[in-house]
C-alpha cells in the first residue's frame, strides 16, 4: 500500500531539492479540499509540464507575481458560492519578497482567508541562481558576483519578509523549518485552523543554487536554525513574536556556511560581521 501523498513523484525538480518535501507535508495536513495557487518558479515549472502534473489537488499557476491576487479571486468566488475549502499559495522567495510582494500585501490588507507559503531558497533558482531580496548578505549568486571589485557578493541584508507581513497584522505568521519537524507540523496545523490571511516563511535548501551536496539539504537547514541564522517564531495579528525554538548553545554561523559553496569566498572578517548580526538579533529577542 503506497501512501497517498497529495503530491506525486515523477516531477522534474533536482535530486535533493527540499521543496517537494515541504509541499507534500503541507498538503497532507491541509487535505484534499485544498486549492493551490503556485507562482512561477522551480516548484511550478518542474511539477506541471503539460500533459503531466504532480498535483492531486486543484492547482493553478497564472504568473510569477500574482498568486496572492489570484487566490483573492478564488476566495471571493468561494465566498459568493458559500463554498468551504483551504486556499494555499506556494511561492518562492523571489515570487514573494520581490515581484509578488504587492499582491501579497494587498491580499493581507483585504483580509482574505488564504494561507501563503513562501518557500525560501534565497534566490531566483528557476532562472539560474540570481539574487533576490531574500538572498542573505555575503551570498554569491550569478547577479551578486564576486570579484576583485566586490569580494563579498550580495551586499544587502536579507529582507525580513515575515516581519513585514506580521507588520500587516496578518492573522498568523510563522517561520518554519522542515528540519524541526514537530515545530513545523504544529505551525502548519495551526495555520490551517486560523481564519484570515496567514503566512509561513519556510526555509528550504536548494543544493543547486547553494552549491551544496544534495544529500545535505536537511542538515544545512538544521544548521540554519541551530546557528541562529534562521530563527523559528510565530505571532498573531502583528502581536509579539514567540520564539518557538531557542538553541541551548548556538553553533557558529561558519558551520552553516561551510556546507555551501555560495559562501566560500567570504573572508573571516565578513563572517565575523555576519555572526555579530545574528548575535544582535538574538539579543534583541531575548526574553
Amino acid at each position, binding site marked *: 500500500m503506497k501512501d497517498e501523498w497529495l503530491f506525486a513523484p515523477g516531477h522534474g525538480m533536482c535530486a535533493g531539492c527540499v521543496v517537494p518535501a515541504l509541499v507534500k507535508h503541507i498538503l497532507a495536513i491541509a487535505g484534499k479540499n485544498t486549492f493551490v495557487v503556485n507562482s512561477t518558479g522551480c516548484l511550478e515549472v518542474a511539477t*506541471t509540464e503539460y500533459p503531466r502534473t504532480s498535483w492531486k489537488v486543484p492547482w493553478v499557476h497564472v504568473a510569477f507575481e500574482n498568486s496572492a491576487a489570484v487566490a483573492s479571486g478564488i476566495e471571493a468566488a468561494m465566498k459568493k458560492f458559500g463554498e468551504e475549502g483551504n486556499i494555499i499559495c506556494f511561492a518562492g522567495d523571489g515570487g514573494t519578497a520581490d515581484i509578488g510582494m504587492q499582491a501579497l500585501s494587498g491580499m493581507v490588507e483585504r483580509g482574505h482567508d488564504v494561507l501563503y507559503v513562501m518557500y525560501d531558497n534565497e534566490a531566483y533558482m528557476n532562472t539560474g541562481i540570481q539574487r533576490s531580496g531574500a538572498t542573505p548578505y555575503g551570498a554569491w549568486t550569478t547577479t551578486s558576483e564576486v570579484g576583485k571589485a566586490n569580494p563579498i557578493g550580495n551586499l544587502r541584508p536579507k529582507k525580513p519578509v515575515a516581519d513585514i507581513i506580521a507588520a500587516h497584522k496578518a492573522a498568523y505568521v510563522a517561520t518554519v523549518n522542515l528540519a524541526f519537524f514537530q515545530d513545523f507540523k504544529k505551525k502548519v496545523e495551526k495555520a490551517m485552523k486560523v481564519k484570515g490571511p496567514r503566512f509561513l516563511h519556510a526555509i528550504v535548501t536548494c543544493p543547486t543554487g547553494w552549491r551544496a551536496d544534495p544529500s545535505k539539504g536537511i542538515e544545512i537547514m538544521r544548521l540554519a536554525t541551530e546557528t541562529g541564522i534562521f530563527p523559528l517564531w510565530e505571532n498573531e495579528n502583528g502581536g509579539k513574536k514567540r520564539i518557538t525554538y531557542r538553541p541551548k548553545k548556538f553553533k557558529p554561523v561558519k558551520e552553516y556556511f561551510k556546507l555551501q559553496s555560495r559562501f566560500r569566498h567570504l573572508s573571516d572578517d565578513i563572517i565575523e560581521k555576519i555572526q555579530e548580526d545574528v548575535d544582535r538579533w538574538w539579543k534583541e529577542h531575548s526574553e
Partner: protein
Amino acid sequence: MLRGNESVAYAFKLARIDVFPMFPITPSTLVPERISKFIADGELDAEFIPLESEHSAISAAIGASLKGARVGTATASQGLALMHEILFIASGMRLPIVMGIGNRALSAPINIWCDHQDTMAERDAGWLQFYAESNQEGLDLILMAFKISEDKRVLLPSMVGLDAFVLTHTMEPVDVPEQEEIDEFIGKKKPEYLTLDANNPATFGAFGSPSHYMEFKYAQYLAMKNASVVIDEVFSEFTSKFGRKYSKINEEMMDDADIVFITLGSCTGTAREFIKMKRKEGKKIGLLKITVFRPFPKEEIRKALKGKKVVAVIDRNISFGFGGAVYGEVAAAMNGMDESPKIVDFIVGLGGRDITFNTFEEVLSIAEKAMNEEVDEINWIDVDKEAVEKEEII
C-alpha cells in the same frame, strides 16, 4: 438616461456577476462606484474586491473565473496597460471574463481623455474587442459579450470599449432590459468549462513545452474563428429578443458611395451627420462602422469595400513607426482583392482632441484629393504641425 459607465454597471448587474474585482481609474471609476452602491443597497449579490492594482484586479478575475464565477471588471488606459501581461494569460487559459473599458489615451504625457491607444495596444492579446457608439450599445454589448465569451465554442474573454467622457460621462437615453429577459438571454447558471473543483482536481496553467505550446495557440486561433460565427448568432438572437440590431460592421449610405469613412466608437455619430450633410451637397460618401474589431471582420470589410474608390480610416490611435492600427488591418484586408480601393489613414482625436465636423471636412478634402492623385498614406488631422516641427523636423 444613463451615463456610459452606468450602462456598463447596469449590464453587469443584469448579468448577475458573481465577482467584481476592481481598481479605479478615470474615466471608468463610475462603474465600480455604481457596483459598490448596488451591493451596499442589497440590489446585487456579488463579491466586490478592491484590489491594490489593475494587475491584481485582472489576476483576481482569473482566480474567480477559474472557480466558476461570472466575472466583470472595468478599467482604462494605464490600468489596461498594467494588465497587459495577464490579459494574454486570461485568454490563454480560456476564461470568459468581460471587461468594460473607458477608452483613454496612454501616458506619456499623462492624459485622461479619449483615444483608442489603450485597447488597440491589446489587439494581440486574444480578447474579443467590441467598440460602442453609444451608451445603449455599451450596455447591449456587455450583455452580449457574456453570452459570446461563455459560449463553449469560444471561451475567450471580451473587452467592450466606451470612449472616455464622450460616452463614459455622457448621459443619454438608454433602454435597460428587464432582469428576467436577461436571465433568459444569458443564462443564470455557471458557464460550462472546467473549474477548480476538489472532487475533480485538475491542474490549470501548466507549462507548455515546444511539443504542445503551438497547438494551444492554434486552439485559440480556432476559438476566435468560432467567435466570429457565435457573434453573428448572438447578435441576431439579441435583435430578435430586444429589437436592436447589431452586426460586426455597420454599413450606411454605402450603395453608391465612392468614398467610405471607417469609424469605431463614438465619433461614428458625428461622422454620420457629417456625411448626411455632405450627401445633400451631392457627395457620395458612405459610412462603415466597425463594432467588432476582434475577431477582425475581414471578409465583411472586403465585401463592403469592394469597388469603392477611397477609404478614409479614422484612427483614434497610432502605432508609432507604422500608422493607425485600423488602417493597417483594413489595408491588409484589401490585399489580393481586385477593385481594391485606396486606403488612406487619418490620425484624429488623440488624447481627447475633439472630433468635429471640421475634422471630417479635412478628412474629406484629402480623401477627395486621393480620388485623383497621390496623397500621404498617414494624415494627422487637427494637429498644430508647425508647433511641433520646429523641434522635430530634420
